């Protein structure tokens, strides 16, 4: 299945392990990735907030690029998903806004007609690739691991533009997937909460406490690791975890996996091939539970 692949800035920046692992799992899932190399950053909500017209045009351009590929747009980032879904929803709902976005893009080879579907890899697994295909690709059951899902706000809220009113099951895909790879999903309140990343530059200690609290809650419930479909959450939960521990005066030490890394492990790939050795918080302990090494 061909998809217009939108990797997002962070998978090409501070989370290169996400880009590598997403590419690695494409083949076993039968995904043909047509990467949108000329598509701009979504603005991560920051540009939408300060200049909605600018964000409409930038995201309209990306949506038009996917449209001209004749494929659904696939994200691997909850934040990209949220922002693109939001602009897609409003551009389709409001013909005036669509017209203005297209006029701003102007005569540059693209015009958005409003037909692109924006889907995170997590949604595609269940809705397009199909759970049978995912099951068939599983070569290694991760039995014995307790895994806490961490969605990231923008793949859950606001519900209208993400289509969650029509498809409430999207709020359970991570839990379903964890069970599917043979691990035990950990139920905890923090799974749908904010990692704190958007506040990191404004109010550092509070942002760190926010993410740290959620990891500690999962840890108290026995989680060996957290899995997230959002690299921005990963940056806060993994990248800043030692600092969060200092703020909370607690030893946290819970590894955070990207969604494609979890899938890759279940597909029988080597942890180093998925760059599980490139995390701030060591993944060693969690991997040892399923007799793997990095």
């Amino acid at each position: 299945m061909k998809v217009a692949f939108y990797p997002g800035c962070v998978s090409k920046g501070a989370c290169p392990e996400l880009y590598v692992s997403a590419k690695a799992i494409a083949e076993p899932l039968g995904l043909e990735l047509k990467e949108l190399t000329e598509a701009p950053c979504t603005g991560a909500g920051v540009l939408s907030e300060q200049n909605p017209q600018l964000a409409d045009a930038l995201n309209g351009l990306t949506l038009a690029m996917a449209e001209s590929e004749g494929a659904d747009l696939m994200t691997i980032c909850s934040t990209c998903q949220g922002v693109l879904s939001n602009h897609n929803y409003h551009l389709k709902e409001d013909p005036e806004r669509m017209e203005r976005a297209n006029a701003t893009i102007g005569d540059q080879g693209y015009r958005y007609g409003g037909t692109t579907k924006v889907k995170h890899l997590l949604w595609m697994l269940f809705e397009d690739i199909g759970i049978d295909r995912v099951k068939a690709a599983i070569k290694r059951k991760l039995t014995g691991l307790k895994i806490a899902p961490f969605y990231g706000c923008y793949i859950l809220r606001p519900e209208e533009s993400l289509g969650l009113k029509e498809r409430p099951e999207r709020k359970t895909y991570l839990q379903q997937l964890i069970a599917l790879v043979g691990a035990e999903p950990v139920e905890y309140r923090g799974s749908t909460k904010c990692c704190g990343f958007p506040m990191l530059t404004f109010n550092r200690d509070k942002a760190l406490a926010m993410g740290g609290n959620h990891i500690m809650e999962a840890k108290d419930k026995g989680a060996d690791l957290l899995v997230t479909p959002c690299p921005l959450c990963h940056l806060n939960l993994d990248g800043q975890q030692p600092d969060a521990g200092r703020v909370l005066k607690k030893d946290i030490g819970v590894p955070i996996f990207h969604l494609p890394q979890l899938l890759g492990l279940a597909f029988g790939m080597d942890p180093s091939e998925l760059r599980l050795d490139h995390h701030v918080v060591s993944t060693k302990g969690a991997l040892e539970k399923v007799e793997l090494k990095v």
Partner: protein
Amino acid sequence: MQFTIEVGRFNPEGTYPENAVPGAPFPAPWDRSPARRYQTFMVDLPEHAVVLDALIAIREYQDQSLAVRCACRSAICGSCAMWINGHANLACKSRLSAFTQDGKTRVESPPSMPIIRDLVCDMKPFWDKHLAVKPWLQNKQPVPPPNEEYRVSNASMEELIQEVSCISCSACLMDCESFAVNPDFLGPQALAQAFRYAGDPRDAETKERLAEYSKPGGIWDCTHCYECVTQCPKGVAPLEQILKLRRMAVDAGFTNNAGTRHADAFAESVRDSGRLNELTLMPKSVGFFNIVEQIKTLPSAFNLIRAGKLPPLIHKAIPGINRIKTIFERVGGRFK
């Protein structure tokens, strides 16, 4: 129809019925309230009944000591906001059938607020925040005697309809992620009201308001998680109003803060390269001369480098960057 209701009970005297078992609020590590006990009741009600019907039935026919705050039963007065299955909702607007999970519905006072008794939380933090934003129109003094009514355009009022719908139930604050870790944050309800007045053409103190709301604890301390938009029973969408205030504040020149520097650095990076430059975003947002805050970020930066997660040192532009530059120029404004 039989419904099972698990009610979180608390009283300062510490006396409980025998069948009330100790328990913590549905996991909330940032819990500010004391431990409470959970008591299970069975109620027989029609299928369309709401949570408040069950609580009133319990108080009337099973345990008259149950404290619950309610008045209108019609989602107008905002009295009965409480945690239902771990999220803030109006008890009078939440159907039992939709809120039954694993055969039961759990109701309790939200752990983010101080508790008075059973399902009654102390609304003091909420009202303190509400008053702090001066939720009234402020005319320039001295006020000249009016010759006729103050006329405003329909369009300017349409912008404010959403905020006027607020019933002050506090559901948004109860589930606010920033408030959970930062009690000083003004919170979604107060800031939505702040926009209602700052955005009113009759208000003479807009600039002073924006200065005030831009301080720590104000508009830039929102974490953008959309919980308030999801929980608000009246469609006020507080986050959207906070974002409008941020735009107004920046336009009015209140730019000496990390929030504005972050937005500017972000836009600059997308304009010049089509994508985010993570290497410069953090130092630019914190402010190059803010040495104390810069130093705080160093251990994390070092950890990222050690893990091999350093973004590429040479930040390359995406192919077709001229398209992006053209879009920035055409839109104009602050980021041009």
